[in-house]
């Protein structure tokens, strides 16, 4: 078995584009769910909007890249508004289902045959990331710390932009959550009526949380699209949201570093298990399962790992055990 490979892949994934994408998605969720208590299960929809905004603007309409970015941010905000108006009056668990529904609607629309001229149907769209990579300041070559970390110049560019976005988003949230604004959000999470009775416009705050979280999510969508140089509708299915939640809970909800560390750890473990297993089978270290079963076993281990982590550390990596025990049934 090639342990260098396994470790190197795990570490790379832990700091790679996957980690960035899920960190951004989870940071958005952190605003919505972690701080405000909005159970948004449609985060995948926001990522899809970000990704498709760039792809459609550039690939379908041939317009400039930055216009796509602008449109993406705008559409994410608009989608949040549209989603918020009917749903923010709902109880948290209703909101969850409605947002899943909304995200699925987004996905079904962009993958539909009828609109495939615009969205590319199930194949999605490609060939839109040229201008992004044109801005790449890294000359071709391998970067990193051999033998563990190695990225090519394209990845380096994605990673740089991605982590800068993560850092900016986190810093803004850090400042915001320390402020009275953040306090109102946290209070809404606990009891809206009480907050209302104190003269705060709960609807407006929830809407702000939804919009901010959604826009951060759409940043994740940008990175998703650009790092793959392709958009594909089914990547934005509910599973994405589920994993983003996992990342958030794993890191610790309502903690600034929670989503970031959660995402890094999640991908590190996921790839460690996956690569390890794959390598073991391919190299003949494990013989009792066939290649066809590797995928299944890996998913089983992922599921198991997820459960064990949450069972033994329900508050996540950064969470406060005291908070958890307050509302246990």
């Amino acid at each position, binding site marked *: 078995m090639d342990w260098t490979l396994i470790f190197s892949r795990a570490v790379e994934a832990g700091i790679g584009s996957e980690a960035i994408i899920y960190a951004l998605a989870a940071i958005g969720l952190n605003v919505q769910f972690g701080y405000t208590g909005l159970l948004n299960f449609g985060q995948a929809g926001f990522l899809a909007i970000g990704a498709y905004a760039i792809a459609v603007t550039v690939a379908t309409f041939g317009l400039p890249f930055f216009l796509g970015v602008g449109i993406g941010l705008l559409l994410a905000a608009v989608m949040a508004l549209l989603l918020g108006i*009917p*749903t923010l*009056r*709902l*109880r948290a*668990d*209703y909101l*969850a*289902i*409605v947002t*899943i*529904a*909304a995200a*699925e*609607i987004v996905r*079904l*629309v962009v993958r*539909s*045959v*009828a609109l495939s001229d615009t969205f590319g149907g199930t194949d999605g769209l490609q060939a839109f990331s040229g201008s992004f990579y044109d801005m790449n300041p890294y000359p071709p070559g391998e970067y990193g710390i051999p033998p563990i970390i190695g990225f090519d110049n394209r990845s380096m560019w994605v990673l740089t932009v991605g982590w800068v976005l993560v850092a900016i988003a986190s810093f803004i949230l850090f400042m915001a959550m320390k402020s009275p604004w953040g306090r109102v959000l946290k209070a809404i999470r606990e009891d809206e*009526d009480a907050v209302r009775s104190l003269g705060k416009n709960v609807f407006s705050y929830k809407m702000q949380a939804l919009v901010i979280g959604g826009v951060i999510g759409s940043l994740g969508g940008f990175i998703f699209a650009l790092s793959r140089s392709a958009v594909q509708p089914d990547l934005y299915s*509910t599973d994405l949201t*589920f994993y983003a*939640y*996992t990342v958030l*809970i794993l890191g610790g*909800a309502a903690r600034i570093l929670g989503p970031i560390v959660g995402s890094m750890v999640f991908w590190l473990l996921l790839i460690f298990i996956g690569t390890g297993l794959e390598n073991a089978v391919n190299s003949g270290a494990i013989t009792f399962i066939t290649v066809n*079963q590797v*995928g*299944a*076993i*890996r*998913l*089983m281990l*992922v*599921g*198991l*790992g*997820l*459960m064990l982590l*949450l*069972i033994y550390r*329900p508050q996540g990596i950064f969470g406060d055990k005291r908070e*958890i*025990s307050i*509302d*246990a*049934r």
Partner: protein
Amino acid sequence: MGGLIFVFLAGASTAWAAEGEEVRGTLRIQGQPVAGVKITVATDADAPVGEATTGADGTWKVAVDKAGSYKVTLDQATLPAGKALRDPNRGTLTVQVFEGNARNVLFGLVDANAPPQGQQGDGGGGSSYWTRVAQLVFEGLNLGLIIALGAVGLSLIFGTTGLTNFAHGELLTIGAFLAFFFNTVLGLHLLIAAPIALVIAAGFGWGQDRFFWGQLRRRKTGLISMMIISIGLALFLRALLLFLFGGGGESYDQYVAQAGIQIGPISATPKSLVAMGIEIVVLIAVGLALTYTRLGKATRAVADNPALASSSGINVDRVIRLVWASGTCIAALAGILLGTTQNLNFQMGQQILLLMFAGVTLGGLGTAFGALVGSLVVGMFVQVSTLWIPPEMKTIGALVVLIIVLMVRPQGILGRRERIG
């Protein structure tokens, strides 16, 4: 477009064996050959290439000397009396012929005397439209009942423990595959395999709470954490099923591909009628049990306030375990019925999970009757909406309805608002 050339391969003996390029066809009306009709072939530039007259078996062919685009014209004057082209404008067809390849050409004929749109009904004939509407309503009921059966268990478990169980879809799948195991692997008849599967599923549900969820509650794991754990569990179970049974679709040994029977405008298979009967009975039984039996009320009490339920002398753990057992059992039943009417696949439960959630939510969270009503609405909209939107997008219909209903009634159809203050 590149040219397409077919080369004759050894061993072929059918009409496909073309020696050179030709245009050919068989003229038929309602399966009967039509003879004596003249067909002419010309090049794109209207230079005549050749002509043929259909033989007694209706066939005709015209050889062309090279690949390209040709105009094929049916001389409508030569058609036998009472026969006409279905679409008189399509008496001349432009066809592409490729190198070394025969091209089949078809002219659709109708009885000129027959009423227009008669047998084909492709002009949106009213009756076939309404047949479809009736069929869709029936299918909506059918799907709605299955969803309801799955959703009741989901709603029960949510109601009593507050757990949003994303692994519920897998409980359906497990039920279906348990029956599959006894049925196909061990060779028992489905009617024997199914009850065994249900018992095991109930035991599995019981054990799941006894050894897993119950332990988590004891550790005071938060509901959101439990929800995420259920996502992990779903992933695990699905992968396990993939591991054990593979990725392909499977079916039971009995009741496969039954022919439909016609009931008025609706075609239905006997098995699905039986399945619907079982579903209705089980749903009503569950509903009544919840409303009227002491244990049913106890489950609602536990749902409301476990500590107080315990203080009233209710063994909360036992009630929850019972709910898990029955919820899993009902889910398994839903899975088995879904397996008989559809097919088994390791993702079958997951595929209707969203619809189950939609049903539960639409009806009003935590109310078992709400789950039933909501699911029927969802099932109905999924199917009936295909009248207006392409079937590929049919779930959108149900999801949009979900959003609209919740805008009007934020607590769901049967849910009740909480008192403030």
